[in-house]
């Protein structure tokens, strides 16, 4: 159904990287198929112009293409109204937009509930409201890497105005039950925001079925160009919200001391938009559709199943990994360590000479560098999820993350290379 070797043919970069190169940093960003590059090129070569206000054919064509991209992408995530899809730069901006605009309606004592497995982009925008007396609470995880539902209920209360959670953790790979979380949040009278940066690219996501109020995601993580992201929002909410940035298309009328906002979605899109980016992302959506998101998910589920199996069978010294063991609840993300390096408590520990030595652990940076020499690209660090990394009791992890062009042999090469590192550093 989905043969990664054939998929690779569509991606010019794999020609350049050569055979056998395993790109396993797809949670950070993904490569671009030829059709996406051609869509961008085609726009600039045939339609390029500014949108909306031009009364000439070129500009009207561009406006039309921009709208069709909006409709196509909103359709992809199951929204029936294209105007509910706001174009941003990336998921981070989407989350900032909603946090900034909704945040202005929060009062001291109001609470926002997120989780310990959030990406920084779903933490910091809420922290910016702490000085106003808003309280930020964290749902914990259980020892298997799932959201702790008891902790969720415990932290939810009458003051919880907003619940904002990740759909798939970019470190653990945990796929949260968005529909159930949304139901619980709504039963509590809270607005429910979903960070879909790691889910929309990898599985079928339907905002109507889930029932979320907002959904944020990035184009570059789903075969689309950089510099384009999306925020879906329920129309009733978007219409009542104050704008985010000012200027350009987001206003209808400007007078010296006041302005009249434009309609949604323009109200939230200030300045000349990234039209080529939207068109490129729309082409990426078409490319993904050509395989079907069910099949994309099935392919990655197969890869993570193989990964977990190889891990269980491997004899690599001190290999540990994080996240659910059930591939049904797990995306194609594998974070691991060779030995454990815990964060330092500067106050108490630093005087103890013994505590400083890592022992037999291999630092994730050394893992990544060594794998790179074997032509395997993985990421090492806190993956912009520092609270989660510390919750796991480590300073960093190495992470392999899959996409449609990865194959079982990439997984095999990964384990061979991990074994090589372990041997090299332990010898």
């Amino acid at each position, binding site marked *: 159904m989905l043969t990664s070797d054939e998929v690779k043919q569509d991606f010019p970069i794999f020609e350049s990287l050569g055979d056998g190169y395993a790109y396993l940093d797809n949670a950070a960003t993904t490569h671009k198929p030829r059709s996406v590059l051609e869509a961008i090129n085609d726009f600039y070569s045939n339609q390029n112009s500014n949108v909306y206000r031009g009364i000439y054919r070129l500009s009207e064509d561009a406006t039309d293409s921009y709208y069709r991209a909006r409709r196509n992408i909103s359709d992809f995530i199951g929204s029936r109204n294209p105007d509910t899809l706001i174009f941003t730069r990336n998921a981070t901006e989407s989350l900032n937009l909603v946090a900034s605009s909704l945040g202005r309606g929060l009062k001291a004592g109001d609470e926002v509930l997120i989780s310990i497995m959030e990406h920084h982009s779903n933490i910091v925008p809420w922290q910016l409201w702490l000085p106003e007396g808003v309280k930020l609470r964290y749902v914990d995880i259980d020892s298997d890497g799932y959201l702790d539902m008891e902790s969720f209920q415990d932290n939810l209360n009458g003051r919880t105005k907003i619940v904002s959670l990740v759909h798939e953790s970019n470190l653990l790979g945990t796929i949260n039950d968005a529909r159930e979380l949304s139901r619980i949040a709504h039963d509590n009278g809270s607005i429910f925001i979903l960070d879909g940066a790691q889910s929309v690219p990898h599985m079928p996501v339907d905002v109507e079925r889930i029932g979320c109020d907002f959904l944020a995601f990035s184009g570059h993580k789903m075969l689309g160009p950089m510099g384009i992201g999306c925020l879906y929002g329920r129309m009733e909410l978007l219409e009542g919200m104050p704008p985010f940035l000012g200027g350009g298309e987001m206003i209808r009328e400007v007078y010296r001391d006041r302005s009249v906002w434009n309609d949604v979605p323009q109200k939230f899109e200030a300045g000349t938009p990234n039209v080529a980016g939207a068109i490129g992302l729309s082409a990426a959506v078409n490319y993904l559709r050509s395989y079907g998101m069910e099949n994309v998910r099935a392919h990655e589920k197969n890869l993570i199943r193989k990964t977990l199996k190889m891990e269980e069978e491997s004899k690599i010294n001190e290999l540990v990994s994080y996240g659910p063991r059930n591939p049904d609840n797990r995306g194609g993300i594998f974070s691991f360590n060779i030995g454990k390096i815990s964060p330092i408590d500067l106050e108490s520990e*630093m005087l103890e000479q013994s505590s400083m030595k*890592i022992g037999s652990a291999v*630092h994730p940076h050394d893992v990544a560098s060594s794998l790179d020499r074997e032509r395997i690209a993985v990421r090492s660090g806190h993956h912009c999820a520092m609270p989660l990394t510390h919750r796991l009791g480590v*300073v*960093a992890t190495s992470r392999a993350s899959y996409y449609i062009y990865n194959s079982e042999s990439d997984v095999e090469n990964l384990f061979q290379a991990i074994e090589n590192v372990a041997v090299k*550093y332990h010898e």
Partner: protein
Amino acid sequence: MSDEEINMEILLDHYRSPRNYGKIDNPSVQLVEYNPVCGDAVQFSLKIDNGILTDVKFIGRGCSVSQGAASILTEKVKGKSTEEVMNIGAEEILKNIGLNLGPSREKCALLSLNALQKSVKKYRDGKNE
């Protein structure tokens, strides 16, 4: 083996068997430098007599680059004046290690130089007070 491979082996040797590892009793100055982003940490203790680093020790943990570089650095600076230590530049350290580290690992390599120069500065500031 290429130069790169040889230098890699040297670094790994320092990492596995660090030189001057430990703490000086009654040091002239002692200081911890920690990078919370990756967890690399080094603690330097120095013995300084008449402006000369007569003894240098470190303890630390982290990746091979941060720890290997710290070990290499202790060998390099023992017997040098505080003046000389303060004049060591980043390029010199990177050249000394002799690996094409790339921008992200260079920070690891320079953690110990930072720590050492901060220690000297702390010592001098203490003297001036």
